[in-house]
């Protein structure tokens, strides 16, 4: 093997990607040729210098601050998202309308087929509209989340309840969800107030392909 070919193989030699036969040929040439030997030694020193570069380390303060900031900034982002979703209510997204009818009979599990298709592993905002006939203070909102969906920030949570004040008229709730399994699924929402409750279930579809044509479909029960 000549000098030119030997030099050409040096990268593979040091990367350990030469076969044994070729490796022997390169070594033999380097041992015999003073010019290539010098180049080989320089290349070796260069690789060693790179490999032995001391690692830069962060200060202890930085580590503490970085983790704390990650949590704080995430919470801040969540709060901003809620406000932005308000502005974008009619602009985009998927929307479901729900009417709370406390004066009428309770409708447990009444099914509403919402024409919503989610792509697998994609985070989407589903907007649920609670149209309340009157002001409801300290109403309990409950979500029953199917195993095929994850509520962002609440992984593996299948039921989530909290209290909120509902004003008379439309009340918008944005649910950031991620579809984790394909299939036809049911999302249940429940509003409870003064020993009365209203439950609605929404049928959604999760498709396995990532390219889902999104449509804005409104569904309202009166």
């Amino acid at each position, binding site marked *: 093997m000549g000098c030119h070919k030997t030099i050409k193989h040096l990268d593979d030699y040091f990367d350990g990607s030469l076969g044994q036969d070729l490796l022997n040929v390169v070594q033999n040439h380097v041992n015999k040729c003073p010019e290539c030997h010098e180049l080989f030694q320089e290349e070796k020193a260069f690789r060693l*210098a790179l490999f032995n570069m001391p690692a*830069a*380390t*962060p200060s202890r303060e930085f580590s503490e601050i970085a983790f704390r900031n990650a949590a704080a900034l995430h919470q801040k982002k969540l709060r901003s998202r809620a406000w932005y979703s*308000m502005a974008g209510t009619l602009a985009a997204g998927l929307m479901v309308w729900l009417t709370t009818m406390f004066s009428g009979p309770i409708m447990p599990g009444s099914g509403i087929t919402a024409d919503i298709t989610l792509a697998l592993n994609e985070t989407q905002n589903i907007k649920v509209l609670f149209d309340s006939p009157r002001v409801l203070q300290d109403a309990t909102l409950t979500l029953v989340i199917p195993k095929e969906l994850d509520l962002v*920030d609440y992984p593996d*949570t299948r039921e989530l309840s*909290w209290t909120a004040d509902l004003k008379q008229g439309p009340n918008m709730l944005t649910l950031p969800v991620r579809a984790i399994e394909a299939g036809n699924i049911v999302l249940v929402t429940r509003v409870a107030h003064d020993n009365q409750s209203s439950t609605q279930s929404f049928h959604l579809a999760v498709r396995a392909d990532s390219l889902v044509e999104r449509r804005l479909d409104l569904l309202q029960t009166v």
Partner: protein
Amino acid sequence: MDNILTIPASQTLPAREFETLLCPHLDFLYGVAFRLTGLQADAEDLVQDVLLKLYPKYSELAEIEKIRPWLVKVTYRTFIDNKRRYQRTPFSLLKSASASEETNHVDTLASQNPGPAQMVENKFTSRNIQAALNMLNEEQKAVCVLHDIEGFSLPELEDILATPLGTLKSRLHRARASLKKIIKYGTF
């Protein structure tokens, strides 16, 4: 206007567990960030951006078997995203030319006259190498840092950098040649 209801802030999001999971890798992550950015402040910003990006994905992180290549992948993508965002700002006009895959600052800056570094016996010092690294373009710098310094194999880098093996090899070859040229002619 609609009344806006919000889901309460998650009380179950395991901030402490997130820290426990990533703390053992933070020095490594910072080391990579420092090699890529070349500045302490930029490295800290990059690591902070990465942590912020990863925080909501805690449950996914906990299930990843080999977390370091995955962390490097996120770090590299964030680094490139930040660079592109910076290049779209008016400040980027201060830079004369953008570094592309095929070109870097070496060819325009390297003097053909021997510099002081050529005269000293040990030219491959950490300081010289880091200064030279800072003059490579982002793609060359990344492959050199991750392969030659951090020890990731080229097949691993195929996935981390989302680049074919052949391209990685030629990029690495050019990166090393550029580094040696910068160090030899002492352009920093």
